[in-house]
């Protein structure tokens, strides 16, 4: 069981963000961390790894206390059983593929896991290659292999696939899944990609403005949601009165949509506010493109 309850005041781009999160994660679960940028996802991951010190709270992994502000316990990152996969890979340019993974092991550790990991990540043929010669996808495979080589209790992945093209991404997702199920590590992945979240993880932490808004299986959050069936979420752009109706402009995904609505509930809607439009009653028109 991994438990954390953390508070931290963060200096974000638009003022101060108070991160206040509390969560319990079952062993060997694969969890996703989802939310707008600036919601505190990376900070949460960095606090779990020990790179950033929380103001208050507690981190407990398998009954091992990593951080406890009341008892002034703060285990250094070196002594936390953590694997961290960075967005920029953070591979050591002075070492080749094999040396990067080998670096994770101590002097007396068995080297057998290296062969196993090279096999699982499909890097066997590239073991002597310099890091600079690899593609983004290959680099992230090395970073992944390096992060699990010590068999950590907690694997933290900070948007590991965001810089990788689609085809390579689904390939890597498969590798991630097989590594996760093989080593039975508790993993937390930061991701913006709903497909990825649904494919990889069993539960999603939805972080919003520093607070956990939802902690549920991704299906409940993103799909088949009773709210989602007949409503549309997006960003409010403008509203103009047109007869007895209002013409509302809404940004959803990459598209701007114009919808005729009744008078909006909230009078003081501002550009950029998150809104939900529901389609109860009147049927909509569909056309194949």
């Amino acid at each position, binding site marked *: 069981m991994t438990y954390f309850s953390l508070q931290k005041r963060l200096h974000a781009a638009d003022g101060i963000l108070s991160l206040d999160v509390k969560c319990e994660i079952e062993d060997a679960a694969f969890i996703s961390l989802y939310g707008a940028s600036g919601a505190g996802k990376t900070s949460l991951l960095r606090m779990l*790894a*020990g*790179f950033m010190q929380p103001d208050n709270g507690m981190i407990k992994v398998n009954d091992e206390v990593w951080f406890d502000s009341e008892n002034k316990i703060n285990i*250094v*990152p*070196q*002594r*936390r059983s*953590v*694997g*961290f996969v*960075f967005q*920029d890979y*953070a*591979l*050591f*340019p*002075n070492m080749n593929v094999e040396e990067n993974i080998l*670096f*994770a092991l*101590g002097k007396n550790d068995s080297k057998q896991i290296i062969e196993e990991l090279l096999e699982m990540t499909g890097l066997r043929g590239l073991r002597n290659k310099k890091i*600079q010669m690899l593609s983004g996808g290959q680099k992230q495979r090395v970073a992944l292999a*390096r*992060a699990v*080589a*010590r068999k950590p209790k907690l694997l933290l992945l900070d948007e590991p696939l965001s810089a990788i093209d689609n085809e390579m991404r689904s390939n890597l997702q498969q590798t991630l899944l097989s590594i996760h199920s093989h080593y039975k590590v508790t993993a937390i992945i930061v991701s913006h990609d709903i497909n990825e979240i649904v494919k990889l993880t069993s539960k999603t932490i939805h972080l919003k403005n520093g607070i956990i808004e939802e902690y549920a299986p991704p299906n409940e959050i993103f799909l088949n949601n009773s709210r989602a069936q007949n409503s549309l979420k997006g960003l409010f752009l403008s509203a103009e009165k047109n007869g007895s109706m209002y013409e509302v402009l809404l940004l959803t995904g990459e598209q701007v949509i114009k919808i005729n609505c009744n008078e909006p509930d909230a009078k003081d809607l501002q550009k950029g506010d998150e809104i939900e439009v529901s389609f109860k009653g009147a049927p909509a028109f569909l056309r194949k493109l």
Partner: protein
Amino acid sequence: MIETAPIFLTLELAFLTTIILFFLSIPLARWISNKKNIFKTFAEVIVSLPLVLPPTVIGFYLLLAFSPTNSFGKFLENYFDVRLAFSFGGLLIGSVIYSLPFMVHPILSGLTSLPDSLEEASYSLGKTKTQTLLSVLLPNIKPSLLTGIVLTFAHTIGEFGVVLMIGGNIPGKTNVASIAVYDEVEALNYHNANIYAAVLIAISVTILFLLYFSNRKLQEVKIL
């Protein structure tokens, strides 16, 4: 014929200064490059002072400090039987202080140019700060280390003011080549001055050429 002693003395001084500064500057630059606080800003000021102060100012205060009539000089003489004023040891300390920025600055800029994630990745793999410094950080700033070494060596060869103030001009002990040029000119021995000067130019050009050449080679291999 000219004396070769001043040239060897110059090389000896430059060699020792470079070695001392290399091992001194790595921990110093590492400390400064970590999270900033007011002490570190102050340390940066001290490190950079020799760049802006006239060498005679540093030389003057070092001379005062080393003088046996002052407390620090007296302390050294009473307890360690060491007199630094007008000695090679004093010269060496003066050079180390005077060339400090030439070693610290390249190493510092090398360290700060590395992404933080390299260091954090190493920590998350269970490596200590020392292991991280030796196996991850330093091997990835080789061009900066080389620049620091070469600039320090070359700069010590070109040192004049500090040496003159605290070293004086004792043959075989503190009479380095740059001072020898000055002495020969004063004695109107232009021929000898010319030889010393030409040797200094040749050494400096060679060193700088080797620096730029090998840094270009390193850049070709390394793409971060």
